[in-house]
């Protein structure tokens, strides 16, 4: 793609009414949906009415008076952006009078605007400049000697963009984008008349304001008033490539705008079906890690982790990898090695890693980071609905009447989807939040949750069962739906179970700490409020009853008939960009791609015929079981692609012990991550900007990742896996990821219709995409569940074994923050650290008072598993008795604290419930000091030249 701006039709599409309007614009007849603006109609005809305050991602405003038109039979000169088309209307967009009026308007704008176009960062990419040309402005009669708004100080506080009020034309596009697109309401127009100016929050600078740096204002700005610092530094781009973000599971598509091989900026793509032209601070701005000096670009090996790394050639590193794995298998057996696929890598890459393990290693010891996040979703939704996936697309939320968010904090974890959700809530949908913390969704500008159920961590199943109790005992269930779509006998068993008095809101109030009446009211709203949609996150899955909670959610949706159409459903908000895809691709140790068990003879035969080997019919080890087996001495080698288990997985001591017990740990990553401290071979990875492939987002949408620059390390990740495979004797011959996708399609029924040419033509496809659903499947289970009849599963509340007591009286729950992503390996290497330079411990004022703690004090956080130190953040966001922290910084290592307890069905760790004590601290823990020294020693590198 060469560089051209995306077309801006000026105003958004009209809401569908089904009625068409025919009119004439500049002599051309056109028929359009009712409600379309004249401006948009003219644009769709190929014209362009001059405009400044209008842009098609926000509602029309009618302030700039540049888009005036003449309409036959009407007096005056209406603004085309605010005037809807009407039947038989005759419009003229260019007349002598209009030209005169527009020039007059433009003169006023330019009389208060710096004339520094040649040195301006937006030169060549400025709508004011363009429109001055479009209206034929040649002179400013007022001169420049009068009062102006020029010469005002720039606000350069934001690390990614500058605000120059001197160049602001007060069109309010930024203010409206912040309100309508992002939903943060951080910007306003301060003052009146000539003194009007854009202001973040209450006259603060951008960095100190409520601004979340999503970039919507920068994108909306028609001048250089809000402009990316990098554009100022580099200049305007000369080409653009559409690709998919490598951060969260929303899967935003962006135009990577380039100059040569240099990335100038990432701009959200308006045609992206997941993000609809919006972005967050991570995807929009936090891509600097791709060129960070910490990136490792040469392969490295060492015989022991106590030695420094030795840079070697790719040939030596690959040969050493293969020989070590074969040596270990020869000594300890076929099942003594395994690997971990990455949810940050592409579908094609994860498919190849699991293929390497199944075909090359000869076992099923493959797992993925979904083990520690959404594996209970796979189990729970497979049991109840028949497949491991969310039921809706993101657009569906715009049809929801009641939105139930449980164990998710989308404004931080899935910000672009959260903006859609907030838009729907501002339109009037009701909100129920079930979360121990008072997340931003509970109370934010123009949004107040109807019900916030701040339950005690670990009581999700009791809470959902109590809601089900109300639904059943008050006969709020959808009997017709259940009889038609579900197993009625199983429903009756479940209904009898949930109806028991012991499961009523009143009975469980002492467990959850939530008032029974509030639970009853929330249950009634969800069951009777119209389309009810459930969105959930890791606050559901990362518990000892994670799978039970997923099934309890599915039960509730089926009981109320909220499955199988737009606006309803069960929607897991996936954490990483390709966690859905990694699971789809057969990254779990018990199943092939498409969620087919390895013991299934027909499926295994299909793979055996294609790959030409006998495959293991026994499930392999999960990540925690790999570590157990390592400490037992039966698991000796691990291939880890794009995953940092030492920082992300629970009970760091146990992970470290497992890694230390292995004879060969291979890490393929961008950076020397924490796991690499225990590695013997390091294979440098490539970023999403450096390779082709696909990601699958939380709505099952498969989207292209496109290479925009050559891999700095020399190879795309899929090429590196192929080199390892071939060194181990496999004869892989892939030239391009498209061939890998063809193999996936041939082996996986739900992907049978997914090929690169289809993706190019359609933009994206949501699986299942096959003969039965050639265009993909936006909404699942429309006519029936994948498993046939929906299955109600009785989910008894079994309390976690992680108990508070005198020594550990508080409950710790962990999570993430908007500016950082997962273990922070990427975002810590960007300016996002301006917002979150360290992990902090949120603690309620009463708990802080009891311990004599002040905000910012260093505290020791101790559990049965370990201890660490970090600074306190005193806040009422957490309830008394609950503390919270993030896990983005290795200096903190929050997972030193978390325990080995895990979900009963999947071993997904119980990150969300750890009994802890908090006390004032004198400094870093012994473990932190030891670890810092070990990490420093482990990262020594002998360069290639010196090693030779």
């Amino acid at each position: 793609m060469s560089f051209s701006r995306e077309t801006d039709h000026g105003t958004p599409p009209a809401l569908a009414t089904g009625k068409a309007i025919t009119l004439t614009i500049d002599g051309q007849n056109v028929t359009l949906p009712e409600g379309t603006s004249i401006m948009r109609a003219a644009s769709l005809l190929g014209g362009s009415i001059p405009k400044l305050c209008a842009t098609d991602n926000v509602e029309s405003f009618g302030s700039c008076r540049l888009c005036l038109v003449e309409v036959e039979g009407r007096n005056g000169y209406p603004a085309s952006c605010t005037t809807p088309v009407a039947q038989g209307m005759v419009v003229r967009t260019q007349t002598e009078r209009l030209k005169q009026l527009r020039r007059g308007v433009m003169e006023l704008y330019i009389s208060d605007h710096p004339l520094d176009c040649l040195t301006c960062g937006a030169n060549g990419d400025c709508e004011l400049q363009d429109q001055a040309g479009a209206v034929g402005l040649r002179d400013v009669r007022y001169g420049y000697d009068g009062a102006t708004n020029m010469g005002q100080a720039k606000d350069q506080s934001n690390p990614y963009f500058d605000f120059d009020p001197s160049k602001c034309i007060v069109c309010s596009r930024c203010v409206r984008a912040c309100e309508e697109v992002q939903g943060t309401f951080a910007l306003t127009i301060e003052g009146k008349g000539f003194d009007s100016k854009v202001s973040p929050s209450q006259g603060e600078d951008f960095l100190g304001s409520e601004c979340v740096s999503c970039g919507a204002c920068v994108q909306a700005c028609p001048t250089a008033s809000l402009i990316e610092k990098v554009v100022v530094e580099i200049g305007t781009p000369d080409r653009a490539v559409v690709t998919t973000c490598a951060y969260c599971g929303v899967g935003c598509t962006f135009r990577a705008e380039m100059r040569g091989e240099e990335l100038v900026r990432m701009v959200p793509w308006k045609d992206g079906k997941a993000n609809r032209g919006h972005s967050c601070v991570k995807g929009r701005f936090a891509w600097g890690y791709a060129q960070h000096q910490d990136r490792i670009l040469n392969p490295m090996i060492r015989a022991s982790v106590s030695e420094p790394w030795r840079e070697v050639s790719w040939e030596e590193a690959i040969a050493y990898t293969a020989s070590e794995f074969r040596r270990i298998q020869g000594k300890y057996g076929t099942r003594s090695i395994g690997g971990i696929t990455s949810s940050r890598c592409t579908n094609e890459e994860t498919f190849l890693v699991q293929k390497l393990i199944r075909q090359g290693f000869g076992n099923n010891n493959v797992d993925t980071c979904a083990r520690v996040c959404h594996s209970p979703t796979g189990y729970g939704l497979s049991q109840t609905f028949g497949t491991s996936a969310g039921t809706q697309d993101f657009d569906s939320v715009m049809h929801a009447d009641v939105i139930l968010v449980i164990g998710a904090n989308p404004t931080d974890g899935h910000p672009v989807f959260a903006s859609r959700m907030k838009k729907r809530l501002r339109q009037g949908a009701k909100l129920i939040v079930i979360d121990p913390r008072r997340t931003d969704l509970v109370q934010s500008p123009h949004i107040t949750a109807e019900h916030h159920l701040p339950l005690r961590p670990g009581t999700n199943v009791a809470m959902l069962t109590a809601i089900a109790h109300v639904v059943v005992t008050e006969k709020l269930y959808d009997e017709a739906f259940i009889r038609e779509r579900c197993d009625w006998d199983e429903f009756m068993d479940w209904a009898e179970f949930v109806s028991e008095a012991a499961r009523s809101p009143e009975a469980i109030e002492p467990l959850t700490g939530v008032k029974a009446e509030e639970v009853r009211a929330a249950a009634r709203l969800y069951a009777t409020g119209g389309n009810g949609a459930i969105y959930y996150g890791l606050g559901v899955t990362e518990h000892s009853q994670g799978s039970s909670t997923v099934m309890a959610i599915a039960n509730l949706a089926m009981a109320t008939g909220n499955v199988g159409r737009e606006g309803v459903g069960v929607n897991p908000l996936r954490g990483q960009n390709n966690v859905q895809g990694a699971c789809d691709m057969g990254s779990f140790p018990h199943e092939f791609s498409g969620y087919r068990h390895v013991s299934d003879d027909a499926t295994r035969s299909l793979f055996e015929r294609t790959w030409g080997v006998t495959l293991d019919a026994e499930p392999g080890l999960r990540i925690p079981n790999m570590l157990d087996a390592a400490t037992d001495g039966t698991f000796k080698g691990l291939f880890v692609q794009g995953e940092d288990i030492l920082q992300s997985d629970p009970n760091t001591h146990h992970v470290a012990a497992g890694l230390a017990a292995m004879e060969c740990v291979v890490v393929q990553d961008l950076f020397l991550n924490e796991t690499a401290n225990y590695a013997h071979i390091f294979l440098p990875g490539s970023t999403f900007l450096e390779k082709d492939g696909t990601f699958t987002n939380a709505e099952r949408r498969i989207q292209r990742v496109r290479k925009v620059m050559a891999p700095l390390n020399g190879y795309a990740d899929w090429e590196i896996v192929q080199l390892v495979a071939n060194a181990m004797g496999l004869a892989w011959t892939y030239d391009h990821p498209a061939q890998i996708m063809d193999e996936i399609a041939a082996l996986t029924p739900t992907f049978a219709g997914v090929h690169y040419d289809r993706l190019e033509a359609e933009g994206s496809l949501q699986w299942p995409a096959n003969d039965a659903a050639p265009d993909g499947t936006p909404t699942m289970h429309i006519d029936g569940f994948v498993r046939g009849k929906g299955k109600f599963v009785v989910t008894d509340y079994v309390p976690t074994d992680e108990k508070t007591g005198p020594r550990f009286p508080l409950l710790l729950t962990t999570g993430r923050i908007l500016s950082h992503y997962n273990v922070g390996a990427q975002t810590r290497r960007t300016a996002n650290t301006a917002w979150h330079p360290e992990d902090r411990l949120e603690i309620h004022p009463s708990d802080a008072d009891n311990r004599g703690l002040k905000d910012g004090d260093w505290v020791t956080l101790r559990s049965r598993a370990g201890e660490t130190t970090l600074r306190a953040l005193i806040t009422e966001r957490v309830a008394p008795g609950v503390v919270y922290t993030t896990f983005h910084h290795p200096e903190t290592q929050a997972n030193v604290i978390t325990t080995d307890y895990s979900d009963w069905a999947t071993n997904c760790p119980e990150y969300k419930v750890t009994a802890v004590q908090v006390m004032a601290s004198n400094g870093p823990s012994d473990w932190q000091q030891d670890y810092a020294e070990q990490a420093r020693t482990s990262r020594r590198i002998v360069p290639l030249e010196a090693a030779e």
Partner: protein
Amino acid sequence: MSDDTHVMSTTDRLIYMAHQIARNMAMMGEAKATEALAEHLTRFWDPRMKAQIVAIAQDQPERLSPTVAAAVARMAQGWPAPDVDAAQFNAVDEAGHCDAG
């Protein structure tokens, strides 16, 4: 588990895991729970984990509840795994059993 440590041996962990699964299946009733647990172990546990829990059932039967013991016995009936080369363990230091690649 004591208040002092959070480190389990693999044996303890497997016993804990089996009982945790059983507790979450208890509402099914004894017979169904036994079948479901046996199936769960068969479908999700790696052969060495299966072998270890079978050994525990033989050597330390007092550590397994009746439901878990019955499920392990039930699982063992349908196991060992299909006899394919790739599923075999090698003895330590015994090379040559790997058919991969």
